[in-house]
């Protein structure tokens, strides 16, 4: 068993010893340790999109009777790296009609929150950067900031298509935030905590010694909550069938039409980082995080976590390459008249279940 938690724990202990031996306080050692953790997360979140873009290309290729990237490296695995390098060296075009400051800030506002959002995510048992007791709320709140970035991108470009895309994006993100948050409420009610680490730990255990006590296996409530969360998460990440802010065929490229080079790369990175975040959240909230199956795990918990996250990522890719796009008014209609009532019904069902179990 290759659990990372004890090794890291030991490493940080020796770091503390080393720092204290050099005449600093343990607080300084703690700050240093957290800084290193933050660096690792930033690195991870920046590198994960490279893998996800490659995965998307390959998955879409196999769904579409073609091969996908094959030339750069074996099976084209370095294609996304090459594309990343290309994007860095591309000219940064700023349209004359744009609001230069807003245009510059928009990609940063979109991409910055996603790094912060990973702080309370347990990447396995004992692998939590910061165990916030308001973890779930924190992620929802911080990731909501990206809506402002999309609005800024749409407005700052000075392009009508961008503006339509930005307005659509803001409306969509704000609307779908509601069912997404409400779909998670049954989990909070059942486990009585908002800490993602505690939620993951609470799902350890087996019914009849076999079926894992993951939230998705809770009768009715679990499945409804998962479906609503999944649909809302796809909408939050602006991916097909909800890619209305980008809507290639209607709005050219929506809010990021006028962005090129590194700024475009940041939008690209943020999209995949949000996919990874949503998948990681689903893995923790509904699939027991690092909890292995069968009991005991066979594999280390972080591998289980990554496996569940990859499965969720695959669902995202699968949706994108199978569904057409909804129309913007139908999208809103779907959110307010279908998802929202059902998430409220689900909360009452969860309350009923908790009462009956007393």
């Amino acid at each position, binding site marked *: 068993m290759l659990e990372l938690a004890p090794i890291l724990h030991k490493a940080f202990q020796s770091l503390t010893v080393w720092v204290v031996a050099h005449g600093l306080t343990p607080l300084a050692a703690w700050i240093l340790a957290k800084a290193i953790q933050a660096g690792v997360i930033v690195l991870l979140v920046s590198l994960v999109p490279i893998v996800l873009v490659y995965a998307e290309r390959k998955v879409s290729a196999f769904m579409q009777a073609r091969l996908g990237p094959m030339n750069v490296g074996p099976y084209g695995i370095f294609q996304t790296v090459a594309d990343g390098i290309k994007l860095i060296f591309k000219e940064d075009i700023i349209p004359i009609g744009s609001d230069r400051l807003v245009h510059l800030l928009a990609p940063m506002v979109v991409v910055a929150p996603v790094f912060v959002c990973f702080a309370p995510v347990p990447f396995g048992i004992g692998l939590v950067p910061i165990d916030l007791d308001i973890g779930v709320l924190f992620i929802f709140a911080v990731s909501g900031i990206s809506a402002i970035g999309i609005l800024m991108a749409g407005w700052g470009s*000075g392009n009508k298509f961008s503006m339509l895309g930005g307005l659509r994006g803001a409306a969509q993100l704000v609307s779908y935030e509601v069912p997404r948050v409400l779909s998670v409420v049954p989990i909070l009610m059942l486990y009585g905590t908002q800490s993602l680490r505690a939620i993951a730990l609470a799902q350890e255990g087996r019914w009849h010694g076999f079926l894992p006590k993951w939230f998705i296996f809770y009768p009715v409530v679990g499945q409804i909550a998962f479906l609503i969360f999944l649909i809302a998460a796809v909408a939050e990440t602006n991916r097909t069938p909800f890619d209305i802010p980008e809507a*290639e065929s209607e709005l050219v490229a929506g809010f990021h039409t006028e962005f090129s080079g590194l700024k475009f790369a940041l939008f690209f990175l943020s999209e995949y980082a949000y996919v990874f975040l949503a998948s990681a959240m689903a893995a923790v909230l509904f699939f027991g995080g690092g909890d292995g199956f069968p009991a005991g795990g066979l594999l280390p918990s972080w591998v289980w976590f990554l496996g569940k996250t990859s499965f969720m990522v695959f669902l995202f890719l699968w949706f994108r390459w199978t569904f057409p796009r909804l129309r913007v008014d139908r999208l809103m209609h779907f959110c307010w008249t279908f998802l929202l009532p059902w998430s409220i019904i689900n909360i009452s069902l969860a309350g009923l279940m908790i009462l009956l179990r007393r």
Partner: protein
Amino acid sequence: MANEISVPSIAPEVFPQHAPDKGMFISLGPQHPSTHGVLRVAITTDGEVVTSAQPDLGYLHRATEKLAEKRTYPQIIVLTDRLDYLAAMTNNWSYCLAVEKLLGVAIPERADYLRIIVGELQRIASHCVFLGTYGIDIGAFTPFLVAFGRERERILDLFEDICGARLTYNYIRIGGVMADAPEGWDTKVRAFVKEMYGHIDEYDTLLTYNPIFMDRTQGIGSMSQEMAIAWGITGPNLRATGVKSDVRKDDPYSLYSRLHFGIPVGKQGDCWERYWVRVQEMRESLKLIEQALNAMAPGDTMGKIPKTFRVPPGEGYGHLEAPRGDLGFYIVSDGSPSPYRMHIRAPSFINLQVLQVLLKGWKVADVIAILGSIDIVLGEVDR
């Protein structure tokens, strides 16, 4: 915005000098991912609702009709390839029908069957492109690579076998076809036809009956029969409104009167039915190909036509059911080696005109759905 670009006030409806009093002016195209080429639609919107739409054409004008006046009759076939570049076979064929009427020559039976086979294969290939690009318009990417990248490629391979070209064929010639089919070609076609039935069923699961796709297209951009006829709409767009009109039945050319096939028609002429009619037509085309293959006997593939010839003075009009509608060539000959005047009745051009009334009142997202469902090829619109 910062810099106002001054444009000549020649066409105020497509190049307005001022922003509209109410709403927003959007110039959709000529560089836009879903105008299928270089079409520009000048749209005024109120929020997301279109209040006026005006197609602006001419970005791909190549003066084909004028060029034809300086070329000999066989040389013009090459020009027709470049009109509707997704259905070059039917362009060749329609032009040859017009010239053959002027000349009064008889076509060998095998050549006629070969024409029917390549013509119907071309219809399937063209509808495959429509199906794929329409999927992209609605936001589904996979049907494009399945229909365009897999099945259409197979048809192009068959065309390459028979005439050496994959896009601009120049295969159907005045008096017959360029060459007989190579040995074993008919078995390849048979194998493809057999497979294609299954692939069309696959399209149904991928796109036709997809709930989101139906939601996006059903009841959108409906056209009444009267409206369609008044605007001169032909082809699948007209049949989707319920009018049972098909040149292959109404004015049978070639050997279509010997073959059995149905004409799929819709009821209300919305985007989904325009799409559905095309999918059904692919099935009917497969039946036609099978019948033609069974009826075809060995023989000549070229009529008795001299290498250089003069066409007797007079007028000739040939038309046929192209994938996009009633494609006609009107030729006036003054007895010289090249036509005095050639006019092309381009179905895309005529079908496109209805957009200015059809788009009004729909949302911006529907504009794309309606534009895609009309299925235009700009090479033919601008000629």
